[in-house]
C-alpha cells in the first residue's frame, strides 16, 4: 500500500506553506528520520522527515510551490517490496480520511475554520515531521478572530457572497462600492476581472476578517501615482505579509499608550564589565558568556513583570489572561523582515543563560530555522535599536502580548544631580501598553519597576 506524504502543519494555525526544496528525488530510497524536504512558512523553514521506509515513488508538488495547503499530498512513498510505478500511478488520490475536506489543491483562499492542533488534524501514521508537530499549545491562536468581532463584519449582498464563494475570492479582498462600502455583485465581477482586488490575507491569518483591513488606497490608486518603470516591484514573501497583517491588526485593534523613562546605566555598565571579565574560557579559548546590555534589559523586564503581575497579561474578549511566567520576545532583525524569538520563563534564568540562549535563537532566526513554538506566544517583548544610535522610539505591540519595551541607545548625557550638571550614561526606554489590558498607572508601575532593576542590577540577583 503506497503511503501518501502530506503537507505537514508546522504550527497550530498554519494552513498553508511553501514547499521550498526537495532533498530527495523520485526513486530515492528513504528511511525513517531522513530529511526529505524543506517547508517554508511565514517565519521559519522546517525540515520534513520521513516516518516510514520506502522509495519516493512520485513527487506531486514540485519545489518552489507557494501556498500548499496543509494535509495536501505532496509525494507518494512506495513501501518496501512495493511496485514503485504502481504506487506512483495509484498514489496521490487520497482517501477522505487522509485528505481533510478543507485541504484544497488549487490554492483557493479558505473559509475561516477552527484552528486545530496539527497533531489532531494530521493522520497519526503519516510523516508530519515529528519534530515540527507542535505541543499542546494548539488552539492558542494569536488572532482569535474566527468569530468576527463587532465592527469587522464585511457588509455584502447575499448574491455577492454567493458569487464570491463560487469564484473562490475572499470577501476581505473585494472592495465594496455599495452604500457604506457594501460589496455588491458588480464588485465581485470586477474582482474576478482583477479590478480593485486587495492583497490576500497572509496564510497564517486563516480568517476573512483578519486581513490588513481596508487599505487607505487600492493598489491601482497607488500605482497610478508613480510612473511605470520608476520603481521595482518586489513580491511580498509570507513573512512580509505576516508582519503587515499582524501589526496592522495590532494597530487597529489596540488602544495603545506610551510611557518613556530615562535610565541611568552607571551601575549596570560597571557590573557588566565586572561580570564579563570574570567569565571563564571554554575549550576554544572563548569566554563562556559575554553579557550585553540587552541581556540585562530582558532579565529586568522579566523580573519587572513578576513584580507587577497585573501587567503580565493578555486581553481576550472573554477574560484577562494573567501569565504566570515572563516569556520575553526579543525582536531580531532579518534581511527582509523581523522575528521575535522568545526567552521562556526569563525570570527564572540567569543572565548568562539568557545571553547564551539569545545568541542561539538569533543565529537560528537568521537561518530561518526557528520552530514556530520558539516565536509564538510570549507575554511581553523587547525591541532594541540602540546599536543604531536611536535615542528613543515607540514599538508596535505584538499581539496577544500587551506591552513592548522599545530600548534606545546607551549614551553619555548631561544630567542634573544635586543641582550640578554631571555626565551620566543614560538610556531611554519607552513602554507601549495595550490600554484594554494595562491602564496608565499600571504601565507606569511596570516601567518604574523596570527602571529600578536596570539602574540597580544587583537587585536582579535577589
Amino acid at each position, binding site marked *: 500500500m503506497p503511503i501518501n506524504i502530506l503537507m505537514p502543519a508546522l504550527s497550530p494555525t498554519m494552513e498553508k506553506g511553501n514547499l521550498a526544496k526537495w532533498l530527495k528525488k523520485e526513486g530515492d530510497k528513504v528511511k525513517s528520520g531522513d530529511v526529505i524536504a524543506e517547508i517554508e512558512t511565514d517565519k521559519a523553514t522546517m525540515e520534513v522527515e520521513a516516518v516510514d521506509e520506502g522509495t519516493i515513488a512520485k513527487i506531486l508538488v514540485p519545489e518552489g510551490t507557494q501556498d500548499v495547503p496543509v494535509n495536501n499530498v505532496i509525494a507518494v512513498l512506495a513501501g518496501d517490496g512495493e511496485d514503485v510505478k504502481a504506487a506512483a500511478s495509484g498514489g496521490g488520490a487520497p482517501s477522505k480520511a487522509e485528505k481533510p475536506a478543507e485541504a484544497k489543491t488549487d490554492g483557493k483562499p479558505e473559509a475561516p475554520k477552527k484552528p486545530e492542533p496539527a497533531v489532531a488534524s494530521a493522520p497519526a501514521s503519516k510523516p508530519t515531521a515529528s519534530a515540527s508537530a507542535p505541543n499542546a499549545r494548539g488552539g492558542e491562536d494569536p488572532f482569535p478572530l474566527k468569530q468576527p468581532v463587532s465592527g469587522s463584519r464585511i457588509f455584502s449582498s*447575499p*448574491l455577492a457572497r*454567493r*458569487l464570491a464563494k*463560487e469564484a473562490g475570492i475572499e470577501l476581505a479582498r473585494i472592495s465594496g*462600492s455599495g452604500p457604506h462600502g457594501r460589496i*455588491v*455583485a*458588480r464588485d465581485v465581477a470586477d474582482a474576478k476581472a482583477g479590478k480593485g482586488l486587495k492583497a490576500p490575507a497572509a496564510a497564517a491569518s486563516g480568517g476573512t476578517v483578519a486581513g490588513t483591513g481596508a487599505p487607505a488606497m487600492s493598489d491601482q490608486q497607488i500605482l497610478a501615482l508613480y510612473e511605470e518603470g520608476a520603481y521595482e516591484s518586489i513580491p511580498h514573501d509570507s513573512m512580509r505579509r505576516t508582519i503587515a497583517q499582524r501589526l496592522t491588526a495590532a494597530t487597529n485593534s489596540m488602544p495603545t499608550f506610551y510611557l518613556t523613562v530615562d535610565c541611568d546605566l552607571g551601575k549596570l555598565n560597571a557590573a557588566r564589565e565586572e561580570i564579563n571579565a570574570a567569565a571563564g574560557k571554554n575549550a576554544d579559548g572563548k569566554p563562556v558568556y559575554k553579557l550585553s546590555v540587552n541581556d540585562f534589559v530582558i532579565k529586568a523586564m522579566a523580573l519587572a513583570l513578576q513584580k507587577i503581575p497585573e501587567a503580565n497579561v493578555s486581553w481576550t474578549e472573554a477574560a484577562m489572561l494573567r501569565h504566570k511566567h515572563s516569556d520575553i520576545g526579543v525582536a531580531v532583525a532579518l534581511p527582509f523582515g523581523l522575528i521575535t524569538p522568545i526567552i521562556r520563563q526569563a525570570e527564572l534564568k540567569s543572565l548568562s543563560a539568557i545571553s547564551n540562549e539569545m545568541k542561539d535563537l538569533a543565529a537560528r532566526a537568521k537561518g530561518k530555522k526557528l520552530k514556530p513554538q520558539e516565536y509564538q506566544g510570549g507575554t511581553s517583548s523587547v525591541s532594541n535599536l540602540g546599536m543604531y544610535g536611536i535615542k528613543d522610539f515607540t514599538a508596535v505591540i505584538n499581539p496577544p502580548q500587551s506591552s513592548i519595551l522599545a530600548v534606545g541607545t546607551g549614551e553619555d548625557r548631561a544630567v542634573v544631580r544635586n543641582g550640578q550638571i554631571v555626565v551620566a550614561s543614560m538610556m531611554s526606554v519607552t513602554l507601549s501598553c495595550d490600554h484594554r489590558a494595562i491602564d496608565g498607572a499600571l504601565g507606569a508601575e511596570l516601567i518604574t519597576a523596570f527602571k529600578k532593576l536596570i539602574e540597580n542590577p544587583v537587585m536582579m540577583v535577589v
Partner: protein
Amino acid sequence: MADTSFDVVVIGSGPGGYVTAIRAAQLGFKTAIVEKAYLGGICNNWGCIPTKALLRSAEIYHYMQHAKDYGLSAENVSFDPKAVIARSRGVVKRLNGGVEFLMKKNKISIIWGEATLDGGGKFTVKASQAEAPKGALGPGSYQARHIIVATGARPRVLPGLEPDKKLVWTYFEAMNPDKMPKSLLVVGSGAIGIEFASFYKTMGAEVTVVEVLPQILPVEDAEIAGFARKQFEKQGIKIMSGAKVTKLDKKADSVTATIDDGKGGTQSLTVDRVISAVGVVGNIEGFGLEKLGVKTERGCIVIDGYGKTNVAGIYAIGDVAGPPMLAHKAEHEGIICVEAIKGMHPHPMDKLLIPGCTYCHPQVASVGLTEAKAKEAGKDIRVGRFPFVGNGKAIAQGEDQGMVKVVFDKKTGQLLGAHMVGAEVTELIQGFVVAMNLETTEEELFHTIFPHPTISETMKEAVLDAYGRVLNM
C-alpha cells in the same frame, strides 16, 4: 435684480425634473427649474395621476355594478362623466400646488417660459402663454454650470393616424373627453392604450384594441400578458393582435377604421372615437440641442449611466433620455445625475431594476427580465408561478384572477425578474424590487416572512414554486 446665474438648471418640471431640482438643492447647488406650461409635467397633469383618478372612479363603478357578488345591493348605478373628470382635474390641481410648494421650500427658482440653449452654459427663456406661478422669474438670459434637460416626451404620431383632438385622440383628449364615446378603437396595447381601454370599457363603451405585435402589453412576460388578455376579453374588450390600422375614414361624429388583421384579411370598424396610443417620442427639437451638437438617437438624447451627454455641461434625464419612459425612471435618473455632478459616485442606472406598472383591471406589474429575455440572455433559469386562486385573501376579496411568476438564475439564485397580474399587484411589485436591489437570492426570500392573510403571500409561494417547495397548491 433677479438672479440669472445658477449652479444647476433643470429644463422641464415633470416628475423627473422637479425631483432632480430638489435633490440638487439638497446637495447645496443653487438651483432653478424652467417650465413653460404646468408644474409637474405630463405625469401630474396629463398622465400618471389623472388617469389613476379616472381608473379609480371606474373601479368603484365596477364594484357598485357587482355589489351583488358581495351580498350588497345598489340600484340604478350610474355616473356623471363631467363629475368623474372634474374629480380627476381636482386631483391634478392639488398636486400642482404641491410642486410649487416644494420648489419654494427648497429655495428653487422657477423660471417661467420656454428655454433655448445658447451654448457655453447660457440659455434664453421666452415668454410662454401659460400663466406663471407667483414669484417665478420671467423671460431673459440665464446661465448655469450644469444644465439638465428633462423635457419629457409626447405622443408618437403615425402617418394616417394623426390625432385631430376631436375624433382621433391622444391621451390628452382621452382623459378629458367632451362626451363619453359609445364605441372606441384603441390603437396600441402598451400601458397607456390598455389603461384607457380598461377605463372606457368599465364606463360602458364597446372597446376594440389593435396591436401590431402578436402580444398585447408587449414589454411584459408573454405568460402574464396572455393571462391579462384573457381577462380583458372576458370583460368584453375586443383584442386584435398582430393587426394594423391601415386607414381612418372620418365622418362627422364617427370614424371608420380599416384594419389589416395580419392573416391576409381586412376588417372595417366604425367607432365614435379612436385613441392613438402608439408610444411616445422624446421632446428633443426646437430648443438648441442640434446647434450645440448634442447627440441624439431614435428621438432621444444619448446619455451615459450618469445622465451626461456628449456635450460638457449638458445632461439629460427621463423620457427625453430614452426608454423606458416612466416617471420613476426619470426621478432616479435625475438623482443619479445630480449626485454624480456632486462627485458622490452613485451607481449608474440599472435598467433591469426599473419596475413597470399598468393600472388596468386586472393590474399588471413587473421588474427585471421576462422568461423569454432571460433565455435570450443565455441564462439557465428556474421559473416559479403561483395563481391567486390559491390565496385566501384574494378569494376573500373576490379577486381570485391573477398570478405571480418569478425567474431565477439557476446557478446563482439571483432573482432575475418578477411578473404579476391581478388585484393590487402594482402595490406588491415593490417587494421584489427591493429584493432585487439588495441582491437577494432565493434563500433570503425563503426566509422572509410574508404577512397572512395578504395577496403578497402569492409572491413567496411563487418563489417556493421555483424551487419545488410550493405549499398551498
